[in-house]
């Protein structure tokens, strides 16, 4: 019998086994991050427990959302689980990129949605549907140098005026720069948090921009008036630049996402181990928390949505939450985690993730055109912050620029 004929049955059997095994494989779409690293650390245990094989694709942040949207639009069924930034929740929702998870969440004792405060339960919601589980809870918090503050008798600021006074005191003392924000390509994050904190909004319910309201003008002016107390390089610093400088040079305080805590724990990244404290973001006229962080969900064209949910429960369920945090992930704001004394001793910032009921929570603006809106704001803020444009004039011009951008939200 020719060899080919002998091998044919074996080939058919192998092909069918391969097809069967690929049918139950899980494909993860992640972005290089502490959260991704932590998720991947649980893959061997999941594979052992369930017999499913898990494959991972890691895509840099700058391309991941476009790649995922294209993949789902083309109905390729490439990925069963996808990590995404909450700022893309609305474009994803509008494009039908992710599956609603509410039924699965309601039925899951392991996930236990009641372990989240109400505000955080809504973190992954678009028009009432949960499209992504919370993968990290990263509010803007205040970070400060305990050694510098103690030496000068300062306390973490409760209000923005106190924050400015602290920054001035540190700068005048010669112990370092007063504070740092990223006034460069990410300044929109601090600006919008400041606008909200001063009682303003970026747009109204009919998607008319309100970026030149009195509150927004006051907030922007305050942001600019802080600059003399920051290092000179703050004007062009990105968010990462600001954090690196805070961790490696003498700067009194910064306001930054809590998710950067991972950088802080690595001695290679910073010179001030044990000398950094955390506190809630200072308050303005409004009690606002700016909440950011990752979401994770199941793409609409996933081939194995049931197995995908099984994996999400396994990694992000309540019983694994401690292990997930200890695997190096940015914390998820479960009540059971942020009130655990053992975890608080190890991660002192956890209590600031406890967002009080009634606090206004502002996520990234939930509009489809947020990237274009944000870019227009960044373009305007660059001139305002370096002084080449007056605050009111710059915001008036921005108001006009944002009108046609926001008009797209109402387009049918």
């Amino acid at each position, binding site marked *: 019998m020719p060899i080919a004929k002998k091998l044919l049955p074996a080939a058919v059997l192998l092909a069918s086994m391969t097809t069967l095994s690929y049918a139950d494989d899980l494909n993860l779409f992640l972005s290089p991050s502490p959260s991704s690293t932590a998720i991947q650390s649980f893959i061997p245990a999941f594979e052992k427990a369930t017999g499913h094989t898990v494959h991972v694709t890691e895509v840099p942040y700058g391309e991941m959302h476009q790649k995922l949207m294209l993949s789902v639009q083309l109905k390729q069924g490439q990925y069963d689980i996808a990590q995404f930034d909450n700022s893309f929740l609305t474009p994803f929702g*509008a494009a039908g990129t992710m599956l609603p998870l509410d039924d699965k969440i309601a039925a899951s004792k392991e996930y236990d949605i009641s372990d989240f405060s109400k505000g955080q339960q809504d973190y992954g919601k678009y028009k009432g549907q949960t499209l992504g589980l919370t993968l990290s809870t990263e509010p803007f918090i205040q970070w400060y140098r305990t050694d510098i503050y103690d030496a000068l008798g300062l306390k973490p600021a409760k209000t923005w005026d106190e924050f400015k006074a602290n920054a001035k005191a540190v700068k005048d003392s010669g112990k370092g720069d007063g504070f740092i924000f990223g006034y460069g390509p990410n300044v929109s994050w601090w600006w919008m948090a400041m606008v909200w904190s001063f009682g303003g909004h970026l747009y109204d319910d009919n998607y008319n921009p309100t970026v030149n309201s009195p509150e927004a003008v006051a907030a922007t002016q305050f942001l600019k008036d802080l600059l003399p107390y920051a290092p000179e390089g703050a004007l*062009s610093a990105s968010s990462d630049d600001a954090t690196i400088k805070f961790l490696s040079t003498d700067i009194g305080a910064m306001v930054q996402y809590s998710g950067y805590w991972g950088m802080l724990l690595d001695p290679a990244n910073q010179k001030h181990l044990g000398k950094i404290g955390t506190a809630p973001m200072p308050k303005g006229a409004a009690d606002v928390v700016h909440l950011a962080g990752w979401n994770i969900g199941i793409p609409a064209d996933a081939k194995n949505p049931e197995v995908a949910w099984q994996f999400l429960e396994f990694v992000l369920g309540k019983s694994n939450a401690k292990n997930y945090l200890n695997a190096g992930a940015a914390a998820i704001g479960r009540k059971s985690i942020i009130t655990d004394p053992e975890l608080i001793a190890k991660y002192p910032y956890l209590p600031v993730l406890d967002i009080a009921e009634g606090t206004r929570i502002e996520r990234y603006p939930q509009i489809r055109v947020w990237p274009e809106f944000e870019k227009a704001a960044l373009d305007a803020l660059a001139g305002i912050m370096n002084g080449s444009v007056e605050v009111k004039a710059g915001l008036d011009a921005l108001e006009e620029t944002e009108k046609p951008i926001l008009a797209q939200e109402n387009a049918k």
Partner: protein
Amino acid sequence: MSALRSSSRDKSIEVANARLAGILVLPTWLIIITVFALPILGALYLSFRNETLGTFVPARFIGFENYLQALVDPRFWESIWVTLILMVLAIIVQIPLGIGLAVLLHRNLAGTQFFRTVLIIPMLLTPVAVGLMWRFLFDADLGVINWALDQINVHGPNWLGWRWPAIMAVTIVDSWQSIPFVMLIALAGLTGLPKGPREAAAIDGARASQIFFHITLPSLLPIVLVIAMIRIIDCLKMFDLIFILTGKGGPGTATQTLGMLTYNTGFIFFQTSRAAALGVLMVILVAPIYVMWRRATEYAR
């Protein structure tokens, strides 16, 4: 009769050869059509619609609306202005310096081999690595450049925080990486020039500078025009350096070239049809530059 038979046999051999040549060239044409023509036609088609990556609204034909929107968008004209500024600065800085270095190296002075090797190193680095490295060098607080300026009592600017310092920063880095290329091409041109006219001029008493400006440089003109054209094209498509160095065209839109605006429109704003229209406009704007270059090259010859 035999002449006639020979002629018709020659003709059929010619036809067979032409057919064979066509078949052999066919794979290349298929690649060119697939990789170049089809995407260009696809972009042209896309530019007349209102498609977005997230399909925010039902896609439909909208005629020239994307083009009209671009033409009235101040960001479009600003990006062209930025692109032109970077291009002109590149030509003004890189060509004289590159030719100057080539002339020096052509003299085969002591250390020529060493300097020739060292000078081409920047050319070998990837633009992303170069951008990252120079981003640290230009840092206002921790960068070596401002530290060095401090040593001579000069307060360096926040290079990446202001419009013109950022444009200068891009020009400096692009020149650092591109001058070696200009130098190498000019050096090859100098090496290929006949010595006769220069020697004759020297015998007639012409000074070195006269020989350079009246004989060497005019002879090099075709090569200089080629270099200029390549640099213009490189400037028009400069992307990765700006992406890394200034954070996608910052501060604000100070270094946002037309290429960066097209990227931002397509991949950040998800407006794929608008980005396609910007791409087509870029091609239309580049075409006259190519025509001017062809005419200049013919004139130089």
